[in-house]
């Protein structure tokens, strides 16, 4: 988006609640198991001032798809709606029109498109209490419509579950959907805004987001494998680490001051810490085994990683300042690909179970292990959503390698995210967009 648009969005996105701010007791309505099909009706937005009519349902379609993907909501069938887009204020809406079709919550609003300037005002209502919970106005360009819908989906989840939703974010991944090579792509969770970032026609591996969601680290084989940073907007790259040998799994610390990377030294792989420009800070691990796939704790003080120093690959944790290495996983004989949840409470990883690879989570001490997938395919490469509710991963259960998303607490709602030709792999879920 153009600079003035992003400034407008930055300044005004989610800026102000419109009239009658929510009473607190509505928050956290959807707590607890079993309350995962909260019925919400989404009316098309009213078009103002001669704006084109097609945006009315575009916004609500994206919103509805996000809320459905969340696994928490059931969207009331549009065919059942009695009332139309208007009226959209709490004093004028006939709430019985909505409670009679089973809705507990209701979304209504308006939009205005003039030239390229888009304004969207949406409100969330509690149908039984007959009042507005929250209202937001978004201003930007017409190209910002999708982000506005994702922002409001996150807001609805914040209001009704107590935790912001993950939809205003991006997933980077590798896909061979083009011409057989795994190139770098970025999309939003619903598959919209899909953009191909690279066309190197070589081996590309392990994308990892910068904290500002403006660039990605990844390994690419030019003459030799090297770690690069690629800018999302310009696709311009700069090399970060180019020493001969394996280098893979580069990822930024939570404050962006360091990169952890697994590098090879004479056939043995260790984890090193670099400055963002690639200068070596120090080697973090030094064992006879292979140490790889680092992941940072969200407070930046620890790194979990894979090591086969005990003979088989397991997950370990070490302080960023060095020191004692603690083993995390104690069951199974092949545990790899750890990734730390943004809220710090869980580590997801890949374990060999049931004859294939499956996604597990554990607390950082190795207790409370949960197996999330039981599929006959290979399930691997987990990455956490910014709200720590979901994990995106790759799975070969349908025959091709595709991306799936799963509820991280229970393993429920495993939804396929990508379709079509080619293998999709190595997903990386960003923080929320700014």
């Amino acid at each position, binding site marked *: 988006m153009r600079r003035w648009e992003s400034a407008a969005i930055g300044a005004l996105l989610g800026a102000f609640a419109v009239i009658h701010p929510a009473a607190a007791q509505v928050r956290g309505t959807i707590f607890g198991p079993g309350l995962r099909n909260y019925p919400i009706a989404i009316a098309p937005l009213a078009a103002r001032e001669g704006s084109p009519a097609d945006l009315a349902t575009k916004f609500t379609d994206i919103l509805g798809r996000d809320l459905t993907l969340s696994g928490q909501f059931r969207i009331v069938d549009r065919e059942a709606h009695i009332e139309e887009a208007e009226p959209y204020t709490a004093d004028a809406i006939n709430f019985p029109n909505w409670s009679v079709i089973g809705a507990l919550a209701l979304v209504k609003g308006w939009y205005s498109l003039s030239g390229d300037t888009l304004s969207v005002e949406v409100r969330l209502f509690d149908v039984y209490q007959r009042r507005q919970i929250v209202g937001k106005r978004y201003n930007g360009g017409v190209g910002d419509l999708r982000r506005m819908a994702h922002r409001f989906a996150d807001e609805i989840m914040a209001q009704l579950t107590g935790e912001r939703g993950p939809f205003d974010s991006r997933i980077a991944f590798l896909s061979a959907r083009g011409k057989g090579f795994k190139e770098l792509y970025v999309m939003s969770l619903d598959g919209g805004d899909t953009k191909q970032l690279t066309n190197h026609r070589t081996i590309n591996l392990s994308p990892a987001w910068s904290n500002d969601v403006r660039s990605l680290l990844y390994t690419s084989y030019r003459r030799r494998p090297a770690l690069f940073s690629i800018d999302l907007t310009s696709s311009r790259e700069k090399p970060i680490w180019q020493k*001969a040998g394996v280098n893979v799994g580069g990822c930024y610390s939570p404050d962006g001051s360091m990169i952890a990377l697994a590098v090879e*030294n004479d056939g043995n792989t260790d984890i090193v810490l670099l400055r963002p420009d690639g200068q*070596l800070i120090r080697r973090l691990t030094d064992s006879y085994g*292979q140490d790889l796939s680092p992941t940072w704790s969200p407070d930046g003080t620890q790194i979990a990683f*894979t090591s086969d120093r005990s003979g088989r690959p397991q997950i370990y944790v070490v302080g960023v300042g060095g020191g004692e290495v603690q083993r995390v996983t104690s069951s199974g004989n092949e545990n790899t*690909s750890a990734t730390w949840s943004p809220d710090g409470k869980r580590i997801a990883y890949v374990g060999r179970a049931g004859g294939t690879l499956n996604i597990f989570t554990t607390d950082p001490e190795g207790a409370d292990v949960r197996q999330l997938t039981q599929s006959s395919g290979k399930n*691997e490469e987990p990455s956490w959503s910014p709200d720590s509710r979901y994990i995106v991963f790759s799975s070969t259960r349908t025959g091709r390698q595709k991306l799936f998303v799963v509820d991280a607490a229970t393993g429920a709602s495993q939804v396929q995210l990508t379709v079509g030709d080619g293998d999709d792999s190595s997903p990386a879920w960003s923080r929320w967009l700014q």
Partner: protein
Amino acid sequence: MRMRLLVAVAFVGLVAFNSVGCSTNKGAEDAYGGGLGEEGVGGGGSLDARRAGHGADSSGPLKDVTFDYDSSELREDGRLTLRENAAWLQSNTGATVEVEGHCDDRGTVEYNLALGAKRARVVKDYLVALGVADQRLTTISYGEELPLCYDQTESCWQRNRRAHFVVRGE
């Protein structure tokens, strides 16, 4: 499937073209000194831009060495192959070799990169022990990224668990 095999073949061939003159001073190399690499990375990243009908496993003068699952240990058949390969190298002293480490696809991508690197290193060390000059050998790992076949069968997996030799400058 055939397309991918062609890609794999073309890729293996191209390494021969693109690595000429790319020597690494192994003796003085400190893997962690400085942090920035001693080789520039050109724009030429295209695997399929380099064409050569390099045979995937045995059409070059040096034969592949295969490994057991999740292992980088040389078997007796591997050591035998390496003695033959070393003999060839002793008779063709102008040749340099890139030793590639490959894996089957059953582990994770990153783990297989590390395993491939170990396999390449083990093979290189053995060739050096057999008298091949260290400076003639470089190593690279492709992990599970360049399989010879895709079947989920032991015979295919065994083919993929290999060290492969790309000869240059004969």
